[in-house]
């Protein structure tokens, strides 16, 4: 099988702190992989490295046969890697519709002058982008919220809006950073269904960071465990769950 994302020997140091150390990971098309580990293990740093928000100290990241290290975040997004954030980062003062539309802006050909003199091209493109955005909003159950300011949405809807925003450009890989954080059990269940649904609907490859074992064990087909910046184990969920190294990382050494 071909490989969609290949990370090899990824290392990132901040001064004396080694945040990620010699980390390797491959994602095949259609994978739904969980990235877990105790707080501070370096999971979000891996996301930031993949999306170009920080530059690795060493190592390579190849997406669909193309090295992406050194590219800017907006370039990596345009290649087809979308993400959400652990602490939701919506454009709070923009409407729900605009939050999604802004993420599709780069696909347009209408430029500054089309906007200023309102050419036919501007209108037809706005229509195209708006239709696309509305489609996404209705898939994520936000169609009635279109005109609301993003900051006025309840928490769960903000999470869904962030996913809608990440999906509009039809990414091949979606990186979800704790999508079910802070949710009650019923909401967690709905989020799990949603993740499975969007994966199927958009033919996505998903890498997700999650602390709730219910989510990881429930939907992930492969699990990668990090501790102190290093990959300590990987396998199918049941294997990983019983791996002594993983148990040690989470609970500490027995009798120690």
């Amino acid at each position, binding site marked *: 099988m071909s490989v969609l994302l290949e990370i090899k020997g990824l290392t990132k140091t901040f001064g004396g702190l080694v945040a990620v150390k010699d980390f390797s990971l491959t994602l095949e098309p259609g994978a739904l992989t969980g990235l877990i580990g105790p707080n501070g293990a370096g999971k979000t740093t891996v996301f930031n490295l993949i*999306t170009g*928000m920080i530059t690795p100290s060493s190592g390579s990241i190849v997406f669909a046969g193309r090295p992406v290290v050194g590219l*800017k*975040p*907006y370039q990596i*997004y*345009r290649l087809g890697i*979308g*993400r959400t*954030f652990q602490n939701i*980062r*919506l*454009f*709070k*003062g*923009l*409407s729900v519709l*605009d939050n999604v*539309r*802004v*993420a*599709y*802006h*780069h696909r*347009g050909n*209408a430029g*500054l002058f089309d*906007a*200023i*003199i*309102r050419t036919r091209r*501007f209108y037809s*493109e*706005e229509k195209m*982008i*708006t239709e696309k955005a509305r489609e996404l909003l209705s898939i994520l159950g936000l169609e009635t919220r279109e*005109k609301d300011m993003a900051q006025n949405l309840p928490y769960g809807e903000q999470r869904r809006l962030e996913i809608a*925003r*990440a999906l509009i*450009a039809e990414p091949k890989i979606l990186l979800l950073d704790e999508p079910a954080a802070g949710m009650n059990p019923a909401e967690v269940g709905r989020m799990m269904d949603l993740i499975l649904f969007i994966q199927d609907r958009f033919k996505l490859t998903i890498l997700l960071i999650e602390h709730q074992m219910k989510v990881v064990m429930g939907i992930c087909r492969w699990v990668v465990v990090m501790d102190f910046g290093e990959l300590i184990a990987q396998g199918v969920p049941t294997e990983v769950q019983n791996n002594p190294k993983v148990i040690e990382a989470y609970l500490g050494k027995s009798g120690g």
Partner: protein
Amino acid sequence: MAAGNKLRVDIGTVALLIVLGLFAVLGFLIVSGVINPYVHTILCYAGIVVISALGLNLIYGYTGQFSLGHAAFYGIGGYTAALVTRSIAAQGWWVLPLGLLAGALTAGAIALLIGLPILRLKSDYLGIATLGFGMIINVLFKNSDKLIKAMGGAAGMRGIERLTTFPWVFIFCLGAVIVLRNLVFSGVGRALISIREDELAAEAVGVNATSYKTLGFVIGCMFAGVAGGLYAHLYTYLNPDNFDFLKSIDVLLIVVIGGLGSISGTIIAGAGWAFLLEGLRVILPSAVQEWRMVVYPLVLIVIMLFRSNGIMGGSEFNFLKPQEYRRR
């Protein structure tokens, strides 16, 4: 709207008609002498202030880039336009627009050159860098006579023809409003606002923040260039002191008082500011003229206390919004 479905009148069209009507009335009052030349000048100055402030609102209010160097671009536009019009011997309606074009392009070109390196900085640091730039430009203006005699250096530039009239100010002010409105309610505008809201998230959804920040900065400075050109040909005299950093603060105040990211607010605050400062001169008896500078800051404090998000608080008059953004 009161009209039924059959007789739906677009509120934008109505607003445009009202604005044109206002233009006709003011024009008539000026021609017939009801509005005296002094008030005419204030009226023009108000329009100029609005154009310049709209430019800063694009930079700070919409894109979130803190600039304390706006007056420098205003000055660059003023001096450039004045140099161009005085070098044209011919007479004609096109002389002023040509000067303004030159002013806008020069301000925009310099904004591009300075913007590329300094727009990497964030908030306060960007403010300090633009402040430094403004000071450099001010020093250049003060010593300009060593390079170009006509610019007059610290003594100021004289002998500029009075070409700025109410219709010109009106046309350029209306144009600035339309350009900015069409810009902010478009994909470009959404990209600019997304940078203000969260630059990192904007980059993560495909917005090239560096190039959009530069774009917003250049266009905003071009507005200042046009305003400076109109100013030069209104007062026919340019003094470097009129473009120092205190003048940048004035524009910043107007933008903040009107409301960040609000065209409507900038128009109200800009026009209000010009008329308040000058109007108090007329209203207050000569014995208490000095109180002008007490009344004005008091007004600022009261507005900030009661409307901390500015007069319009980031929203717009309905007629300025495209259909889909209007409520009801």
